[in-house]
């Protein structure tokens, strides 16, 4: 069985994994990182989106062995010193979640979207989140939240 080394939310793990083990199952079932949920089996819903070496990936579509040597950040590792990331806070402020199942992936995708486009238009936000499905909110408040999150993150960059 291959042995991999992977850093998840700042903690380094060495794990023996079957080659077929999905990264999301490694996270959820071996490392106890259940904050990242699974919503589908065709990589359409995006609920399992995480950051791998700074880029968003759908962890249901990555094999654990592919994460060897990578730095993974999940929704559980986003906050700093017990306070939420500005995007998480923005989702709260704008009521951008109801059942919350899509939320971890949606927040991750939103942060990744801002990497390419720090001040996205509504259309750019909607296009940018196309790979993440929500069944509760109708997306209106998610779009507002991403805008707010973008502003807060922009402010944070400007005022160190």
């Amino acid at each position, binding site marked *: 069985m291959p042995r991999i080394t992977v850093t998840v939310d700042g903690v380094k793990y060495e794990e023996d994994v079957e080659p077929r083990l999905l990264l999301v199952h490694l996270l959820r079932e071996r490392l106890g990182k259940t904050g990242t949920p699974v*919503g589908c089996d065709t990589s359409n819903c995006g609920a399992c989106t995480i950051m791998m070496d700074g880029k968003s990936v759908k962890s249901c579509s990555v094999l654990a062995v592919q994460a060897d040597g990578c730095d993974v950040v999940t929704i559980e590792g986003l906050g700093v010193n017990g306070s939420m990331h500005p995007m998480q806070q923005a989702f709260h402020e704008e009521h951008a979640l109801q059942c919350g199942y899509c939320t971890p992936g949606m927040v991750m995708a939103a942060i990744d979207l801002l990497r390419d486009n720090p001040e996205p238009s509504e259309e750019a936000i909607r296009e940018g989140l196309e790979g993440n499905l929500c069944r509760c909110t109708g*997306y209106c408040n998610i779009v507002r939240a991403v805008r707010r999150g973008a502003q807060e993150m922009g402010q944070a960059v400007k005022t160190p």
Partner: protein
Amino acid sequence: MTETEVGKARKRKEDARLLTGRTQWTDNLSRPGVLHVMFKRSPMAHARITRVDVSAARGLPGVVAAFSGHDFEAAETTLPCAWPVVEDIVIPDHPAMAKDEVRYVGEAVACVVATDRYLAADALDAIDVDYEPLPAVMDMNEALTPGSPKVHESGNQAYTMKNAFGDIEAAFRDAPVVIDRTFIQQRLIPSAMEPRAILCDTDGDAFTLWSSTQIPHVLRVMLAVTTGIPEHKLRVVAPDVGGGFGSKLQVTAEEVLCLLLTRRLGRPVKWTESRSEGNHTVHHGRDQIQHVRIAANADGRLRGLQVELLADMGAYFLLLTPGIPLLAGSMCNAIYKMDAYEFACTGVFTTKMPTDAYRGAGRPEATYLIERIMDELAAELRLDPLEVRRRNWIKHEEFPFTTISGLTYDSGNYEAATDRAMALFGYDKLRAEQADRRDRGDPVQLGIGVSTYTEMCGLAPSRLLGGARFGAGGWEHGSVRVLPTGKIEVITGSTPHGQGHVTAWSQIVADALGVPFEDITVLYGDTAISYKGMDTYGSRSLVIGGVAVLKACEKVREKARKLAAHLLECSPDDLEFAGGAFKVRGTDSQKTIQELAFAAFTAHDLPDGVEPRLDSEATFDPENYSFPHGTHLCAVEVDTETGQVKIRSYVAVDDIGKVVNPLIAEGQVHGGIAQGVAQALFEEAVYDAEGNLLTSTMADYLLPSAADLPTFVTDRTETPATGNPLGAKGVGEAGTIASTPAVVNAVVDALRPHGVHDVQMPCTPERVWRALAGAQAGAQGVMPR
């Protein structure tokens, strides 16, 4: 006057946990030594099972057990139907695991139990099943023809019923205008984001079942009745539940089987479905053929409405299957006055996944047919669709109003909601633009769709449910524990799965007891804690469950008043309650709820015969439904060359009565509209002629993404409900019920000058293009599927 909590846009208490991944989805949970279950499912829509051999699977690594349908006692695995809608209904036997015959693709025929979910999946391949194919029964009309292959020995007609109000023949006789249409309510897949999951454990005597369910209380009763495990030995827990929309209002085969496997093996078992497994086997919604006739005078005044539904039950009855289309029975007449109304419905068995409740359940179907045909009437009479509605709707001064179908609408103001919606929408300006585009022959035409809906919510008054042959009541329970330090634990029987009960209930209790919002917590979803409840569906939580909590608070106050009077040495009548304290009128002496909580706890100085607690509980059973209403307006741009439909603007003005939390209410409306728009434009569960589900994954079943939807403009008018002290009407289903006809009416409106009178949902570019091409070819405008 202190500011009330009710009415404030409080941010949700639920969010922090959900946003940081500290969640309790059922699939996150485990038990020491847990075994993983996987089901072998039928690839055939209809077949005789001639052999199931699980022996090879039993010998594989990690496999602890493997079973087929014959390994379970029939009596213990018969899935319940709680709504035998008519006396002579035929309820076919519905085993949780098929034994001799399968009747839809995805039906479980065997299972394996293994130490690891990957090993369980491997072992499924080693199970050998032989089938002898039988003909699939896929079309409702064909199913009802003599000589059709049968889904069940008893035949394909599940039931038929008819209700008539007024003289329908007189209404249609010599009517100046009669319009006749057939609408199709396509089959939908509810698609809650969290797939179903189950965990079950036993201590050898008692059982605990965790499930992603909307109905832990109902489930406990039904599982006890089904499996024979005594109710007091069975605890059901709904931890965090990731959406339901009716799809988790069910007693599923998997829940029954996981419970029986735990009993049989004496070990904890767990099952989590894959999405494609869920698309096949989570109950589907809608699926009706609607024959609708309407008779009117030349001025557009309605004379009569005749509705004849064929409702696809699928292969079996699940918990509420036969009753769902009948929820339309009293609602097709909607907000309109008429002389006569007839409603007939025939339930039909086919070899597909059973249907059951999906957001709105029966009322979206009713609203669709009446709002679509009202537009057809307007077109026939060359009237504005809103004008034809104005001439027929119940006027605000006529409430309370008893409709032709016998329901009494307590309150409403359709004029106010419509006026507000027209103003926000810029109705006249958009009509002018539409005329201009028509004149110019613009290839992109503008369509304007209207939906002035109402719905019956707050399901439901128990007596009315009894009259409808429903197997349970419609009350809800709430209790309030006053802890020694004055903090409050609220327990609700209405189990949330995203609706924000914790926040809203905190607001209600904060006002009722005068305690800080932050000092209140809400417990739910575990039958060991919330021991009594009827759960969450039918826009009932606030209207019934919230009221139960409010009534429990009133009892707390009465207990506290007696204690305060004793401690303050006055008569209870001399006390006034405000700001969380009982004050002796005209003096400064008072006792706060917190002081009284501690006094009750120490019990050092209680009046004779008074128990040492302020805790109280209440059960609320409404006398009538509530009737939210509103006006939704949709503008679409339809490209007549490609068939592409784009929503240009969408305005919703809803009257949901008094609102506890406007932020949460607006969120419910947004999500509801999105689901209704999805039915109009995107979603359809498609089976092929052999009964294979072609939309079995999220790659094939088109849930809209953010890129597919516009921003919705929402507002409210407020006509309080009179049937409950909160004045609330319910909001969970409103958006879904209203929006589907608004969108389709807009699409048809855009194309009407081209001779199109209907476009079948979902209005995909292909369907729109074919409707146009068909109309241009001189056909009726309604294309075959």
